[in-house]
């Protein structure tokens, strides 16, 4: 039953993809009539200069270009022409750094907040105010205080991904079942051991949910941040290719951003499955 459901879902997915690609192909082919317009007009429009590159590319163009990129992901021809692999590595490196700093701060702090009703109440207004601030609003402040653009991007990743983890950790720790705590108490388990053997495993699923939300936000933010700070990274690549009017590359970058985001999410989903326990 489930197998056949999965199979049917896969078939529907493939059909939808085929319909989408077909429609895309047809739609972009019709703009090919631009070639029929008078050469003067075409020249005026700046299309011939780039050999129709600025026109909306079809799926076949994108496919061919993607293949090219995949064959040489790590070439480096100076600041404005690097392989997609290198750009993605820069972005991932920044995301990981900002994210790991956020993990290192959010989880211990979340523990503290979750364990202490006083701290929970005292810090709540700050968290509530900081949480909804758009990542890009931090950018000028980061650039002004940190000065280094790359570090600023990392800071922005950090400041945006810290909140869901902090809130979830605090919530998970605060809502550990009292009876489990009582078991540890009757066994005279010390505070540190209790934190690691009861509270952490009990709160782990909630913490992992927070970490999963955070990695999603971090990956969303990195593209925007790199567009602003420039230099390297997939966000900068998108911006640069837009300036080059290479819509094909922009589409490829969008595709890759989606794929990498999905992979990051799936990794955390796996880890999450490892720590969940049925009750």
């Amino acid at each position, binding site marked *: 039953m489930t197998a056949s459901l999965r199979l049917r879902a896969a078939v529907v997915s493939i059909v939808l993809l085929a319909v989408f690609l077909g429609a895309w192909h047809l739609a972009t082919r019709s703009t090919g009539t631009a070639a029929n317009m008078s050469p003067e007009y075409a020249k005026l429009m700046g299309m011939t200069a780039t050999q129709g590159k600025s026109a909306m590319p079809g799926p076949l163009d994108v496919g061919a270009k993607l293949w090219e990129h995949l064959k040489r992901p790590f070439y480096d021809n100076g600041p404005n022409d690097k392989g997609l692999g290198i750009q993605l590595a820069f972005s991932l490196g920044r995301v990981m750094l900002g994210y790991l700093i956020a993990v290192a701060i959010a989880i211990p702090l979340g523990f503290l907040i979750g364990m202490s009703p006083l701290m929970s109440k005292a810090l709540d207004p700050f968290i509530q105010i900081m949480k909804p601030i758009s990542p890009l609003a931090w950018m000028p402040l980061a650039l002004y205080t940190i000065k280094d653009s790359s570090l600023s991007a990392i800071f922005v990743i950090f400041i945006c991904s810290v909140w869901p983890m902090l809130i979830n950790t605090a919530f998970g720790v605060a809502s550990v079942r009292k*009876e*489990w705590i*009582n*078991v*540890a*108490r*009757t*066994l*005279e*388990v010390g505070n540190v051991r209790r934190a690691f*053997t*009861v509270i952490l*495993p*009990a709160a782990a699923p909630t913490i992992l949910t927070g970490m999963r939300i955070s990695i999603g936000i971090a990956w969303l933010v990195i593209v925007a941040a790199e567009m602003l700070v420039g230099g390297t990274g997939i966000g900068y690549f998108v911006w640069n290719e837009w300036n080059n009017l290479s819509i094909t590359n922009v589409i490829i970058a969008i595709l890759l951003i989606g794929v990498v985001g999905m992979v990051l999410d799936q990794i955390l989903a796996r880890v999450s499955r490892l*720590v969940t*326990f*049925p*009750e």
Partner: protein
Amino acid sequence: MTDKFISIEGIAKRYDGARSTTIFENLWLGMARGEFVCVIGHSGCGKTTVLNILAGLDVPSEGAVIVDGQAIEGPSLDRAVIFQSHALLPWRTVLGNVAYAISSKWRRWDRAKVKAHALKYIELVGLAGSEHKRPSELSGGMKQRVGIARALSITPKIMLMDEPFSALDALTRGTLQDEVRRICVETGQTVFMITHDVDEAIYLADKIVLMTNGPGAVLAEIVENPLPKDRLRGDLHRHPLYYALRNHIIDFLVSRSKIFTAETPDHDPRKVPVVKIGRTEPTIVASKPVDSDAPQAVAR
């Protein structure tokens, strides 16, 4: 009685809120070392609350509990608790749950020793073969047995049991009652147990404490078990005092638990009457709330 091992001294539990409630107040009870005490009372009267205070998990609003000459300040490994709600750690296996208790008590033990010790108690409660299952894969009765194994495995001085056999079938319940009784007698446990099962109380307890309905619950009587210490489960009903004892308790639960406070205004909570079932012939259910004939109340 000066040889009280556990002494509950005037404890009260109140919950303040919009409507502040007094679950019980001015509660006194003494238990001698090695004594097996069962508490019977209707649901919600505050039995678990008393047990939690004894465990050190809950703090009384007033009064104190003295154990072995020292006021309880918090939970202790000397007082093992079997929780009403099992309270197993769901991310650990059966073995892991029992081993957690053992390695908490004997920090120095290596893994193999902890495991062997845990397996012994898992086998004792009849769960051999299920030691690698997680609590979610166990039935209610199996979970309860893990809780029993966990409490027994750390060989405490005092066992606090909150309806430990309530979810078990008659056969398993019988076997486990036998085991728990044997271990408690062998290791000289002092036991405070909550139950709703009158026969269970008669089989296991030296003294049966009857608690009235809450709020404002009081300990109405302490019924001494007249049955010999070496009683067998199958022979209970043949004992001449069995029915008198049973009827007295059931009578309390059915009618007297509701009206006790109103009918006994001079009840002194510091001197809970000790009831000795004295008649040698089976009594028919008493028609009046307090049968003046069958049990004779003896104030301490």
